[in-house]
């Protein structure tokens, strides 16, 4: 079997002459698992589309250079023929599952190949088994969970037996369990059938754990290429390109920079042994010095009492939730998809009404208040920005909310221009929001909520699909709002965000509260998190693991861990010195 060669001397596709790829050279070996990372707009998806000839065959544009996949040149073979060799799975599962049953979905590609129905039956059974969906052949794709949909999308191209599988952000938007399901299927595929994998992914931890090689794209070019270890050691360069690095690399970098250490660890195991070598086990735990602020006068902004809810004919989505959210709090709601996070949050602004129990917002029962009235008090940011963007200009989009609340024209104008300035959108005021990039569309929706100045702000997975830099910007803005006294309720799957920003965590599981309390305490209860298929971020896991060396063991951020560790080392050195001076006395008779 020949090695696969992909070669991209300069090429420039794109509908209007918008240069996206500016000279990419890339070779991927057979059986390799390559991760492609890069900030939004770097050209990752465009690159994927050139691989099976969708570009330039379906979209035109200017195409230079050449792409050869498994010996086939995409200039001569269109996507119809390329799909025998290379399967692409796109980001949005909804638009890829266009049949009525799981089985028909997988069959579609095979019908295009012109296979006999016996052959199809065999391949469908095989593909569904590989992605662990056997027995669901008659289901409607809409009845599948998020992780199942992604795995079905993989099965649909897998059944065509491609030598190369291209996955464009296969785990974006999935809960932790769904992510693991999808990635382990991909890994197994690579191991057992030697399929070459090219995966576009933002999550550095996932890339670190699963990929053989990493290529970083920036501004339409490949800027770095190498093993995860080589690439992720360049922490500063990656941050400059707007990319995340695994927490362990970041930790090593912090030590190297501040103490001129030379750590090279990138996994938790390596970090543990490298850092532990300078400590001794068996020392008593240092006490957590972060004092819990004494119970201030409770002033709840949201009170939930024995809340039950079920959708039409469905099972209970919320089963007896009791909760009190204090003014100025930063609460994260976590849990698997379907655990009731969004259902709970939609009760805060009256989009859903309790089947039983009640919800009080700022002391008033939401029953009897209309969504429009509650919108003054509770702002709600929906997950997908496209579900609210409709106005002809960014200015109009942001002015929409304040205008609905009945403010005067001057007030609306003042709030709108202030919001645009605050969220860095002043230059786009006259642009139609629908044509902006995803990150900017998200900013528009945040500005639109902020312009309504609600006291409470609910954010439903606001960072899904954003790259690291946009995520940082957004979280900084949200933290600022929180400092100004807004109560923040954040729904997310990203435990790093929770650890870094939320003061309180609510863990939901099957419509019930599994845990609720300060983030530091909740993240110590690993067994309980596991029950909800969650895991604390790597840095917290590492801190916990190294507790018996005398660390406090409850660090939530890299900075906290660093300080804890250095303080321990300092104490130990002082202790050593102290015992050295004491020793003569000890020896004295």
């Amino acid at each position, binding site marked *: 079997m020949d090695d696969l060669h992909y070669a991209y001397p300069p090429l420039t596709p794109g509908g209007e002459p918008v240069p996206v790829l500016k000279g990419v050279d890339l070779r991927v070996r057979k059986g390799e698992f390559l991760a492609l990372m890069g900030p939004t707009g770097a050209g990752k998806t465009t690159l994927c*589309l050139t691989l*099976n000839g*969708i570009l330039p065959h*379906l979209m035109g544009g200017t195409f230079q250079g050449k792409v050869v996949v498994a010996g086939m040149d995409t200039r001569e073979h*269109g*996507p*119809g023929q390329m*799909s*025998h060799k290379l399967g692409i799975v*796109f980001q*949005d599962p*909804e*638009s*890829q599952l*266009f*049949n*009525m*049953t799981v*089985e*028909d979905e997988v069959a*579609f*590609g*095979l*019908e*295009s*190949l*012109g*296979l*006999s*129905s016996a052959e*199809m*039956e065999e391949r*469908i059974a095989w593909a569904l088994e590989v992605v662990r969906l056997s027995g669901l052949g*008659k289901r*409607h794709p*809409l*009845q599948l969970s998020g992780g199942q949909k992604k795995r079905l999308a993989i099965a*649909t*191209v897998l059944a065509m037996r491609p030598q190369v599988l291209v996955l464009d952000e296969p785990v974006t938007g999935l809960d932790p369990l769904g992510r693991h399901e999808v990635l382990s299927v991909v890994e197994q595929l690579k191991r057992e059938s030697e399929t070459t994998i090219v995966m576009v992914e933002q999550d550095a931890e996932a890339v670190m754990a699963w990929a053989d090689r990493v290529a970083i794209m920036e501004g339409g070019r490949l800027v770095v290429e190498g093993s995860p270890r080589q690439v992720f050691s360049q922490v500063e360069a990656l941050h400059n390109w707007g990319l995340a690095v695994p927490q362990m690399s970041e930790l090593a970098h912090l030590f190297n920079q501040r103490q001129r250490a030379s750590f090279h660890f990138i996994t938790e195991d390596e970090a543990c042994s490298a850092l532990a070598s300078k400590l001794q086990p068996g020392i008593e735990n240092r006490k957590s010095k972060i004092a819990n602020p004494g119970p201030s006068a409770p002033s709840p902004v949201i009170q939930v009492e024995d809340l039950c809810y079920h959708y039409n004919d469905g099972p209970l989505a919320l089963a007896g939730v009791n909760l009190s959210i204090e003014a100025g709090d930063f609460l994260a709601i976590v849990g698997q998809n379907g655990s009731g996070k969004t259902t709970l949050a*939609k009760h805060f602004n009256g*989009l859903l009404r309790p089947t039983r129990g009640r919800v009080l917002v700022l002391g008033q029962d939401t029953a009897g208040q*209309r*969504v*429009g009235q509650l*919108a*003054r008090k509770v*702002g*709600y940011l*929906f997950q*997908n920005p*496209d*579900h*609210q*963007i*409709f106005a002809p200009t960014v200015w109009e989009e942001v002015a929409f*909310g304040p205008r*609905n609340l009945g403010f005067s024209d001057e007030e609306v104008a003042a709030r709108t221009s202030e919001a645009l300035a605050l969220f860095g959108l002043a230059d786009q005021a006259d642009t139609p929001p*629908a044509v902006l990039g995803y990150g900017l569309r998200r900013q528009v929706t945040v500005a639109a*909520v902020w312009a*309504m100045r609600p006291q409470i702000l609910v954010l439903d997975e606001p960072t899904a699909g954003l790259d690291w830099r946009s995520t940082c910007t957004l979280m900084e803005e949200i933290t600022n709002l929180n400092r100004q006294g807004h109560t923040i309720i954040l729904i997310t799957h990203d435990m790093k965000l929770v650890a870094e920003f939320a003061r309180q965590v609510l863990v939901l599981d099957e419509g019930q509260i599994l845990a609720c309390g300060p983030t530091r305490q909740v993240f110590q209860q690993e067994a309980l998190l596991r029950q909800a298929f969650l895991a604390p971020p790597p840095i917290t896991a590492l801190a916990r693991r190294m507790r018996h060396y005398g660390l406090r063991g409850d660090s939530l951020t890299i900075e906290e861990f660093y300080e804890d560790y250095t303080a321990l080392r300092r104490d130990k050195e002082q202790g050593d010195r102290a015992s050295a001076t004491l020793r003569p006395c000890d020896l004295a008779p």
Partner: protein
Amino acid sequence: MSFAFDLYVDRASWLHRLDPRTKLAFVVFSSILLLSFSHLLVSAIFLLGIHGILWSSKVPASRLRWAWQRMWPITVLILVLWPIFYPQGEEVLWQVWRIRITTQGLWQGLSMALRVDALAFAFLVLLFSTDQARLVRGLVKLGLPYEWGLTLAIALRYLPTLYGIYTTVSEAQQARGWVVGEGSFIQRIKSYLPILVAVIVTALRLADNLSLALAARGFQPGARRTYLRELKLGLADRICLPLFAVSLISLLILRFA
């Protein structure tokens, strides 16, 4: 998630196994039959027969109840209005001012109502027992271009999705203080604008991605395709089809000769 756009009931029965083309032929046969014979008895026997067929093919009673609930208003409407607007016949039962209710009018109203119900059930036999994929396959096999069939299938598949998007968008706009469906007629129409625009933009993005997904699965317009479930006329089909043809011809001769 709503599946209200799909009437199909998945069962293993002789009716489900029939070729969709046979069932399409049955719909055509029934329509011609019901339109040529207006007699009350024909519609009544036909309706009874259809319920027998549906019962023997394990369509649950709840589905039938659902169908009758949908048919009920129009049935009552015909029963009431027909005698009022067609006051033929001698035997006057009741008369106020210009309104005259006759026995003949009542009977005609009843037979018309049953006829409409019978027609609706003829279609339901097809829709209850044929999944959309097979229905579209049947139409394509009868000469509909594959691309049209695919378009139809995709349209049916995405109806619940679009409905879901519509629900989310209208929630998102309400959360921004927007009030939907109040005020004068014009105001009400205008109040749907922020929702419709967002739904359409989202749908366009969806369509764009869908075209890429089709290409990635090797779809080429006009290219030769095979099918997972090739439609084949079975024994039952070979009995049913001539039966329809013979009965139709003889009934038409009976009626018009």
